[in-house]
């Protein structure tokens, strides 16, 4: 299987391959950073899943990115905390970690402690630190693309865009929203440095892609928006790293938005409440159903970039980090309704009293 397949010729002339990759030190570094984020994300998410199943501590749902770590992290490693703008979505634990989100932010938001960035006001994947370029998703799919675009727009207007770049992600289902279309079109019209990754994981909750779109391949849409398209086998971490490098480099170089479509299969339920019994058995045996983490660890070994011992030590370290963070967050306070200020405006004199 080829390591990377970029978009159809009309979209992307380069066709980076694994062979060339072997000679490239930067590629090795990017790959290993990606892989470590994948490992950390998987271990953290396994903990979240077990906390959910145990019950009692996580309020609300748990949405995991199992199988999508390579695609997510390969984008996240290109984003610099405080300098770039990131609007991740529900299956981007790995990308968030690659961007620099601490494990504590994840756990504090899932457990709803007051110490977290959302302070119990919002939960699970709905978290961020907007002033640091880390947008906090609302549930409404597609709606962050224009927000990330706006942050880039403001920087350019002020003349301090520099080499900053924006990234946002979405699923196959989310591409059907009007917001996705409006946001990508606007970014294209403004030719802003935005990378939009579409994780085409074959399902939107239970809905298969045939009920979501009628084009052959989502990457074909790039042409219609006037943006460059890239297609990846997203179960292949080396391909993800190679193609994302190109996409981010092109965005930073002023070539405008990049649409990166990664094909894979969602290896979890929609959320942990969902057994995904609607996924046909035959689909679980296809190449799309490969676990990118397994593939990535094999690639690391076969490239001679990390041996089994090294990989095991990274796993052990991630596990320690997660356990320590969880122990800490477990001691932290839940929000107190009597201390909550119940204010939705930042301007105190415009707040209304209670008139219920």
């Amino acid at each position, binding site marked *: 299987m080829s390591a990377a397949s970029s978009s159809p010729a009309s979209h992307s002339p380069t066709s980076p391959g694994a062979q060339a990759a072997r000679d490239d030190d930067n590629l090795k570094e990017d790959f290993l950073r990606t892989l470590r984020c994948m490992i950390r994300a998987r271990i953290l998410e396994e903990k979240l899943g077990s906390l959910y199943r145990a019950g009692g501590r996580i309020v609300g749902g748990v949405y995991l990115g199992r199988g999508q770590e390579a695609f997510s992290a390969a984008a996240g490693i290109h984003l610099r905390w405080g300098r770039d703008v990131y609007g991740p979505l529900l299956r981007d634990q790995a990308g968030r970690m690659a961007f620099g989100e601490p494990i504590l932010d994840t756990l504090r938001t899932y457990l709803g402690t007051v110490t977290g960035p*959302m302070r119990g006001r919002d939960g699970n994947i*709905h978290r961020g630190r907007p*002033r640091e370029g880390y947008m906090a998703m*609302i549930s409404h799919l597609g709606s962050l693309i224009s927000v990330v675009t706006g942050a880039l727009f403001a920087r350019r*207007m002020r003349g301090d865009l520099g080499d900053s770049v924006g990234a946002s992600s979405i699923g196959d289902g989310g591409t059907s929203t009007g917001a996705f279309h409006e946001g990508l079109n606007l970014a294209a019209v403004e030719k802003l440095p935005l990378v939009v990754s579409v994780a085409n994981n074959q399902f939107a909750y239970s809905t298969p892609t045939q009920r979501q779109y009628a084009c052959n391949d989502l990457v074909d849409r790039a042409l219609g928006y006037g943006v460059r398209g890239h297609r990846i086998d997203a179960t292949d971490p080396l391909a993800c790293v190679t193609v994302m490098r190109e996409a981010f480099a092109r965005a930073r170089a002023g070539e405008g938005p990049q649409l990166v479509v990664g094909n894979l299969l969602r290896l979890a339920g929609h959320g942990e409440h969902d057994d995904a019994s609607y996924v046909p058995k035959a689909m679980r045996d296809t190449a799309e159903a490969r676990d990118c983490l397994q593939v990535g660890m094999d690639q690391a070994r076969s490239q001679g970039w990390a041996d089994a011992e090294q990989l095991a030590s990274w796993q052990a370290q991630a596990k320690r980090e997660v356990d320590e963070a969880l122990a800490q967050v477990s001691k932290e306070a839940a929000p107190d309704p009597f201390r909550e200020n119940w204010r*939705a*405006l930042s301007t105190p004199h415009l707040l209304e009293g209670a008139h219920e």
Partner: protein
Amino acid sequence: MSAITYLEAIREAQFEALRRDKNVFLYGQDINAFGGAFKATKNLGAQFPGRVFDSPISEDAMIGMAIGAAVEGARPIVEMQFADFSSVGFNQIINQAATLFWRTETPCPITIRLPSGGTAGSGPFHSQSMESIYAHYPGLVIVTPATVEDAYWMLLESVQLNDPVIFCEHKFLYYHLKADDLGQPMPLGKARIARPGRDATLVTYSAMLHESLKAAEELRLDGYEVEVLDLRSVKPMDTDTILASVARTGRLLAVGEAFPWGGVTAEIITRVSAEAFHLLDAPPMRLNSKDTPIPYHPNLWKSHRPTTATISARLRELLRY
């Protein structure tokens, strides 16, 4: 200074906002060289190069973009071509902008200008008053100027606020309403006694203020002094000023141009009934448009919304009780 219209006041306020603060920019359909569908941004693109941008017809993305820019410290003013089209950006307004500060402590200083309300012949999709819908959501400030002075000063103040503002400017007032000068600023959030009186309190806002003032004048000929309050902003709503007036008059009529189910007038009545029931000498009343979409033909349109005649009739009913 020669007479200035409500529309010119809005243009002047945007000029001043752009002049004062480099972080202010304008975003909307046809607003740059063309100057906007109503010319509310006429010449601003030339006067402030690189600060006035034409947007695609994408209300959702327009608001989303403004929110992202605001996170970065910009203070965008977004023009909806008509208030009615803000429904396409509704999600971004009520879910993204309105929740941002509460969720993340990140202020969201965006001002969304909504050319609102009815003018004859505009029909169901170019006549709507959306203030009640947006006022329902926590995290938004809803401004409804009825005067040239307020159009100017409250727009300037809106741009300076660190919260999202829905600025409902009334299209009927654009050219009809003139003032000699821009007057003095009065803080947002305070209602104004537009006409003092002792027999009944009429609470209203935006274009309905002018119909209401004419109705109050009619009632004067019958010997009644109706106090007319201009809310100026429907959220926050200056309940204290309303209650103080009702304490003097004992009677309440709330008038609004929006649809009758729920909304601003219902909120006024709820607050007065709950907090000042003992002050009322008559059941509180309200008057809104009819409960149908807004008709196109002027004959129908005039009967759909409250007018001086229907407000006078309702006032008489209230005073007879």
